[in-house]
């Protein structure tokens, strides 16, 4: 863990989390988390159900449901620990929701146009915006009719995830946290979403923090680092080969090791 903290203060890191503890008002969830993600790197965060992986994603995004009790989050050279999620988003952090929220009354086109106009670097003419949205829709095999439908309302799980990928490709964030983007997808949808992630890496050269149980979604990606979480603690970190190891042996050894680690 000390190694990770040391890496965290390296200047070329895009995201640096140092000694972060957080939780809800009455329940601590994350304990002394430290990790860092370099620009353009792909990191995978794994762990058994209830380990706190999604919570970490939401805390990085600044979800007000969770409070940080200690530690800090530095993004792109600036301390963002106290910033709201909208500011973090505009700074270049993107969180893909495990269960994207339905927003009745808001056509997808209105939503996409508005979130682009919030970013000076993405401001463009309506015509170019339409063209770009059309290209992404084609890339992700999204029916153009979806663009005039209300955001996520009545969409299937796969369609919602494709729309999340559409936002990712449109916004071109510096860091994308994908929270179990593969969950609930059939083979075809998984393939399309994987292509979307690959396109993000190639077109935007953005960094990825993938929270996943499914190694299939990683097949098209080159993973730089793997992190393992158990009961709110970051218990291991390693190269991409750690994924194969977890695939073969599960999380049992990490869970067993945690009490000893805590005692140490």
């Amino acid at each position: 863990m000390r190694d990770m903290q040391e890496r965290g203060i390296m200047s070329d890191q895009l995201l640096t989390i140092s000694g972060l503890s957080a939780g809800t008002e009455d329940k601590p969830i994350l304990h002394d988390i430290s990790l860092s993600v370099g620009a353009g790197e792909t990191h995978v965060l794994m762990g058994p159900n209830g380990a706190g992986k999604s919570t970490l994603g939401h805390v990085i995004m600044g979800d007000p449901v969770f409070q940080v009790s200690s530690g800090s989050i530095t993004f792109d050279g600036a301390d963002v620990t106290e910033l709201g999620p909208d500011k973090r988003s505009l700074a270049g952090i993107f969180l893909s929701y495990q269960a994207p929220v339905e927003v009745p009354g808001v056509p997808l086109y209105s939503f996409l146009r508005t979130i682009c106009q919030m970013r000076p670097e993405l401001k463009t003419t309506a015509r170019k915006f339409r063209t770009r949205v059309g290209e992404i829709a084609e890339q992700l095999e999204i029916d153009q009719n979806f663009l005039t439908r209300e955001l996520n309302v009545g969409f299937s799980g796969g369609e919602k995830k494709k729309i999340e990928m559409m936002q990712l490709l449109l916004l071109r964030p510096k860091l994308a946290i994908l929270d179990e983007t593969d969950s609930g997808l059939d083979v075809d949808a998984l393939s399309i979403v994987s292509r979307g992630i690959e396109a993000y890496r190639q077109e935007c050269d953005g960094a990825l923090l993938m929270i996943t149980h499914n190694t299939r979604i990683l097949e098209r990606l080159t993973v730089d680092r793997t992190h393992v979480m158990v009961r709110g603690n970051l218990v291991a970190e390693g190269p991409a080969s750690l994924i194969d190891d977890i695939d073969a042996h599960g999380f049992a050894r990490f869970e067993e090791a945690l009490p000893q680690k805590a005692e140490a």
Partner: protein
Amino acid sequence: MANTIITAGQADTTTLAHVNVPPAQTWNYLRINDISLTVPEPHFVGDVYARLPRLFDAVECGVGDEALTWITRAAGDATYLEVKAGEVREEPIYVDIDASCCDVADTGVLVRTGASATIVTCAHGAAADATSASLLRVIAERDAQVKIVEVVACDEGQQHLDAVGIEAAEGARIEMRQYALGGAKVACGLCCNLAGNSARFTLDSRYQAAGTDVLDINHVVRQRGRSTRCDIVTTGILADSARKTMRETIDLIHGAKFAEGSEIETVLVTGDEVVNKTLPVILCDEEDVAGNHGASIGAISPEQLSFLAARGLSEEAAEQLFSRALFDDALIHATCPAAREAVLVRASEVLGEETSRDMAEVLGIDAKEA
């Protein structure tokens, strides 16, 4: 053929004391049972016979008899259209109400068995202290499919009265979208009678009111046929000192076995002086039916706000998104160029010219065409 004429600014007025009266009333002190409107007194200039087929006389409209009588007198003449049995009418039937001319339109549409048609009504324009009105009565015969888009895009100085009555026979499908986008005092009354078995009515009603606007809405659905279904979704934004009253009644009448009715309202309130009143009622005189009502009133939900924030939108920006979305949605569904033009003009007044132009371009609406 006109027997009466209303002119802007005329001195003679009359008061419609009880407009938009719901089938079941509540305590008077709540001041929610009706709205009164002061309107120009129609001038008699001649007689007109058989303006619409007599069967339209039986169509109930949500505004009530007093307002109905006034509109028919003020309109003078009426427009009757018939869609033949089995016809799929591609071109929308468009009813234009130019508020700046104080237009009063009385329209009857008969959609014959198995036919399908789209009807767009649009009230637009500006004339200080003027009144405009529209009455649309639709009879949908067996298995007919009717889409209705009602747009009220008047400016802040205008008073507008909009009445809709629908009669749906067995298997008829009525899909309606209602957009109340502006007007100093607007009253929209709607009644749909699901008379035939398995008839279905869906209503997506959206509104925005700001400044000192007064918006009064009355939705009534009579479910008479067996296995009929109605789904009403109402979404609105209220700002500044706007006053809105909405009555929503689903009437599950004796004999309507297995009927289902649902009404859901979501209101976003952004002004401290807003007055928002809602009277949701489900009347039930039959067993084996299902009625559902839900409401969310106030701010954007925490889940939605959190999601929108994660995409870079502050609470204020999220509220602006909802305003824009309302107009975008009207542009998407009001398929007639004239109605789209009216929506864009109103959007320009509410959201600014730049946003209005952007909306048209993003949605690929040719400004010249609109």
